């Protein structure tokens, strides 16, 4: 037995924390390696992107520590303000003059010194809101009218907001989070399957109606045939990863980042990891994600009340989904989505939000530690730490 107060600080899951920090470290190193040449070329400062990422990391660390200190339970009361704030930001992007235009899609709010990507905030806000809402509704979650339909409608609206920014990846991400949490909360599987089936024709129409989305699909199906067109990124990414082989070309020695591979430091940073660090580096990254997911699910299962479980589940889903999708895109398993590789990709908002989410998850893990004090191993562990 031990004092509750002291234990709250030291029983955050150390394995989860270590895995997250390891991923961030890899991320900072790879962002520098992948961006140095571009930075030098564009900004005459090869550290340009690294510096910005380090600043984001500092903010992320503060956010993470704050959330861990306050505890996830307080988020329940903040769920509405958070989600409303995120939605407002999402709408703000659409206002001309505020939203920055990058890569043909307005996804950023340009602020002096940095820019903000509201969709990254929305994903975390959505998890908090959804967890709160599902936990509040308890048994009624099973019902269609109270538990299922309102969430689906809300998710549809938010996904629509993402699509207005041509952010298909985030839209899908919101829906995946919804399904993951509905499933966890006990929604009827028949509803879930039915809604997926109902969504299919809509999705098809949606893809076919936008020529660029259709091209992305064809490029995905045949990257080599469209190598000099839409398949360019994927083809270059495959070449990057393939050239890495088992041991990689060595940190900093990748060649594809010499402007062959666009977005090498953001969406396609995994390609540079594969090229420079080889299968060994890829294995390390994948194993770290496996650890994060494993410890995340463990935290969710161990949470003392449903809100914590849903939060842990949602955040784990977010990490797992983004990691799987990003790596799959880089390796030609999925069409280009525009989702970052959690903790690794360059991008301030993404890193800060991912770290905030990790803070929430760690907070949940702490609650799990408390809840399962009777467990032999954990008892030893916390005693050792105490």
């Amino acid at each position, binding site marked *: 037995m031990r004092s509750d107060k002291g234990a709250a600080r030291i029983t955050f899951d150390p394995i989860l924390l270590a895995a997250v920090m390891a991923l961030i470290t890899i991320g900072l190193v790879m962002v520098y390696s992948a961006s140095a*040449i571009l930075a030098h070329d564009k900004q005459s400062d090869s550290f340009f992107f690294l510096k910005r990422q380090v600043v984001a990391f500092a903010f992320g660390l503060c956010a993470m520590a704050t959330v861990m200190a306050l505890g996830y339970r307080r988020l329940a009361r903040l769920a509405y303000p958070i989600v409303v704030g995120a939605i407002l930001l999402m709408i703000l992007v659409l206002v001309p003059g505020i939203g920055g235009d990058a890569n043909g899609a307005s996804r950023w709010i340009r602020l002096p010194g940095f820019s903000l990507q509201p969709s990254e905030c929305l994903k975390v806000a959505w998890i908090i809101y959804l967890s709160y809402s599902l936990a509040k509704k308890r*048994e009624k979650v099973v019902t269609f009218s109270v538990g299922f339909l309102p969430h689906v409608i809300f998710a549809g609206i938010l996904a629509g907001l993402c699509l207005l920014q041509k952010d298909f990846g985030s839209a899908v991400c919101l829906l995946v989070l919804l399904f*993951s949490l509905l*499933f*966890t*909360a*006990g929604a009827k599987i028949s509803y879930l399957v039915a809604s997926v089936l109902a969504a299919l024709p809509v999705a098809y129409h949606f893809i076919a109606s936008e020529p660029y989305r259709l091209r992305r699909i064809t490029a995905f199906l045949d990257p080599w045939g469209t190598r*000099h067109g839409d398949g360019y990124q994927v083809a270059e990414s*495959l*070449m*990057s*990863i*393939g*050239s*890495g*082989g*088992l041991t990689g070309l060595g940190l900093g020695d990748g*060649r*594809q980042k*010499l*402007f*062959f591979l666009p977005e090498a430091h953001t969406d396609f940073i995994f390609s540079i990891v*594969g090229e420079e660090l*080889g*299968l060994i580096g*890829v*294995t390390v990254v*994948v194993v770290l*994600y*496996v650890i994060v*997911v*494993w410890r995340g*699910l463990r935290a*969710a*299962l161990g949470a003392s009340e*449903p809100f914590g*479980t849903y939060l842990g*589940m949602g955040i*784990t*889903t977010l990490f*797992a989904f983004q*990691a*799987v999708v990003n*790596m*799959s895109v880089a*390796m030609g*398993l999925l069409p280009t989505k525009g989702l970052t590789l959690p903790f690794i990709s360059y991008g301030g908002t993404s890193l800060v939000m991912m770290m905030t989410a990790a803070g929430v998850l760690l907070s949940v893990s702490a609650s799990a530690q408390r809840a*399962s004090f*009777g*467990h032999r191993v954990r008892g030893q562990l916390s005693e050792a730490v105490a």
Partner: protein
Amino acid sequence: MKDLKGLSAPEPSQRWMRLRVRLLGAIFFALLCAVFARAVELQIFDRERLESMARDQYVREIEMPARRGDIFDRRGVPLAQSVEVDSIWVDPSLLDDPAQMARILAKKLNLDAKELAERMERGRRFAWVKRQARPEDVAFVRSLKSRAFGFAKEPRRFYPQRELAAHVLGLAGMDGHGLEGLELAFDDELTGEVSRIDGFRDARGRKLLTQGAINPIDRQGASVTLTIDRGLQYVTEKALSRAVVEAKGVAGMAVVLDPKTGELLALANYPGFNPNTPKDTDHHQLRNRAALDTFEPGSTFKSFVVAAALEEGVIRPDDIFYCEQGAWTVGRHTIHDSHPHEWLTPKKVLQVSSNICAAKIALKLGAANLAKYYAAFGFGQRAGLALPGEGKGTVPYPRADIYVATQAFGQGLTATAVQLAAAYGALANGGVLMRPYLVSKVTDPDGVVLLENRPTPVRRVISARTAKTVVSMLESVVENGGTAPRARMDAYRVAGKTGTAQKADPVAGGYSDKRIASFIGMVPAEDPRAVILVVVDEPKTDVYGGLVAAPAFKEIAEAAMPYLGVTPSRPVAAGPEATAVSVNPKSAAARRASSSGPSVAVPAVAVAALTENAPAGDVRVPDLSGKAGREAIARLLAASLEPRVEGSGRVVSQSPPAGTWVARGAKVRLDMEPRP
């Protein structure tokens, strides 16, 4: 987790929740495993294919041809050099509209638009736009600021002495390979090894890094040093061209040979050409006819007949022969002399060049001996210059008396100019034939001698005594009463022989009325240091070698003797009458002591003649003082000026001086000296 049950039993829905969470966890794990499996597939199984695809786009194997070796004259003056010039290439796949760009480029760079467009079509990712482009072309393409273009330094062959020895040197083509002459004969040596290096490039087509620098020595071909002397070559070419022009001939050739060594000091052909602008020249004009082509030599062969007959003892110097008053019938043919003669000694036969008496001597010698001696003098076999296409001449065995007779005055057989000069070299060299050669040395850039020619005696043809006798007989040719008094020199004793051959008519058969006029001589007669042959093809004003070719011989000899540092045979002031007889060896020795190396004077004259006043114009002459030769030449070419180089090493003076405004294409003379 079972122990949790005891504390707070989870609700049934919560148990379902645990199951669902684990199910989702299993899905995540499976997906991450799939990702990992895909990574294994790409990085282990597809690695080779993907890597080679990646390599294809960032690695360009760059072929770096070695800088072609230089060709030097015997004193180390560069006759052929390579300088680096920009060539422009394009990656057409990076152009938005290749056809449009082809049109623009063609217009600006004076190229054929259709041809360029086709090349770009064919090239896909690489096509030459213009090789060895002008500086203004390069500037224009750079100003396009397109990443599709690239520039490569390519060596361009440059002949600093222009027309000088052009036929000997030949030509190297755009791709740096020899097409003619020594450039072709020693192509492998001059070219050197091509080094291949991997150059990385980024997606913008910039060459980024190469794997290590190449040792510049590895990148240079061997250099070739000739026996040719730039100064003598210049004098010879000038004298030859004057002779041909004055006689209104169609062509001419001249050879200067050192009889003691067999070295060819000069080898000239007329008309000449500028190897820097080979496009302006007909291909047949490029041929080094003096070394390669054969002709019917005519009366110059009589010397060999007399030499052979003396050596065999069938005649003696004081024998006399009846010359039949100018016409003599052998079998069904009649031989004519240009002037009727009656009784002549062998010396007189040579002096007046009697065909009839030469024929009689040859008949006395016999067909077998005649053929033997002609062969011994080196006719009918290649002289051995190692030039591709070198002729060997034909000397058919004279089966009938008429053939013996005609071969005695050099008709009915052919020889190259070099063969003829070498054979006279045997007379001049005490009867020993030396192998003629043109290349003295081929040296690797690191100093290894790949090939070295040294004076090589081929055989003794006649005894030293016979040789001496014949040479003294030939001295009479340039005296009054001989066929070539115009070859006579004030300070040096000359022995020589004229030749006026009828040209065979290849169309009608038999002989035409066209002539080949020649004079071959040696100076100084008492100890010949140079054998000089001048041949004028189809002279129109006069046809006799003594009139057409002998003055050129004299001009060359007069420059060559002091140049070679040869002591005059007699005091210059002395009149010709006083020196008709042989010289007292004692006084000759005394004179030798008094005269000292005037050899520098002649090249200075030649140099002065080479320099021309550049007209005022639109290019400013750059300041080149102190610059290394190659750099100076490159800078002049970049300024659209034509360099003419004296010496080697660094520029010590230039003319016109720096800052002068001259016309595009004007010549700038650079005097160079090796760095102390």
